[in-house]
């Protein structure tokens, strides 16, 4: 079953989103990298909406908190990540399907390590249960 990862990347932390793609070793897993002005642009509802599409793993990459261009941005992104995980736990989807990493802008080896972590995570989780579940409506119409 084909899988997909969406990465929301702060433009300061990851100035060249294409670099993420060149580091990607996820094989068949499709990777989409969406640049954001700051990791704090991501709200819980956007992460949930993305997972609902469905996507198998959603990741946010930001700057280390003390290096955030907008002072509080990266810190806020951390808080939102925590309560997005709570929402997922509440509805029985693995909280590990969202993740967040921070790095010093321009630190290429840190970025490579993050991309490797994302790849490992999606392989470990496997396809989202939203893909695996047969849709009863579809089953009905197939009859």
């Amino acid at each position, binding site marked *: 079953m084909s899988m997909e990862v969406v990465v929301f990347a702060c433009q300061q932390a990851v100035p060249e989103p294409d670099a993420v793609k060149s580091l990607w070793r996820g094989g068949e897993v499709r990777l989409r990298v969406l640049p954001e002005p700051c990791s704090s642009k991501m709200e819980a509802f956007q992460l*949930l909406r993305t997972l609902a599409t469905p996507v198998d793993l959603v990741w946010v990459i930001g700057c280390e908190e003390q290096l955030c261009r907008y002072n509080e941005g990266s810190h806020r992104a951390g808080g939102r990540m925590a309560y997005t995980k709570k929402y997922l736990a509440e509805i029985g989807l693995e909280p590990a399907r969202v993740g967040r990493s921070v790095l010093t802008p321009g630190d290429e080896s840190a970025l490579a390590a993050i991309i490797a972590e994302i790849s490992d995570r999606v392989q470990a989780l496997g396809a989202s249960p939203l893909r695996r579940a047969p*849709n*009863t409506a579809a089953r009905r119409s197939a009859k």
Partner: protein
Amino acid sequence: MVIGEAKPVAEILEMIKDFKKVVVAGCKGCVTVCNAGGEKEVAILASELRIARKAAGNDLETLEYTCERQCDPEYIEPLDDLVKDAEAIVSIACSVGPQYCTARYPFVPVFPGLNTMSIGGALEHGVWKEFCQACGSCIIGDFGGLCPITRCAKQLLNGPCGGSSEGLCEVGKGSIPCIWQLIYDRMKNLGQLHKMQEVKLYKNWSTSRDGGLRTTIREELKQ
């Protein structure tokens, strides 16, 4: 404002389990301010419901809309276009909202997505507290602007009781300030301590819920 709190998603999922397409309706009033039923919370709840239902192999379609308010009939009207295509409505306004939806759509099931908690205000980001029980004849002018009806566990009008100790109420294991201590401090600040010696004989409770369902009429505004 009216303080609301999201219901557990499991409870909402159970309410809408028979439906395939629901409107999730928020409110830009009080419940947006207390982060329980505004546009973002509509998007969160709708996504949660879709995810949970899809994972269960029983897809749900959600239609999202956030009304200007849900406590005025004209602001419910914009839901018409969505509701005509939906099987049910989940309203995350205070519990006035679902009842206004019910009035407008007599043949569509309506469910509350929030628990309406109190009339109150924010103490800090993420913390809201009750300040008024809407007794209908406000008496806080006699008590330094503080409400003993809401904030005294025994609703005393001639407090404090014997359980007040070091400024704290005996209810709440030391976590609740004794409102009568606060009233005393306040009256002292205002130089009005002597007023506390006036015995309050009774309060008019007929204006509260005890008097039945309340309707407020402003003749000059009625058309």
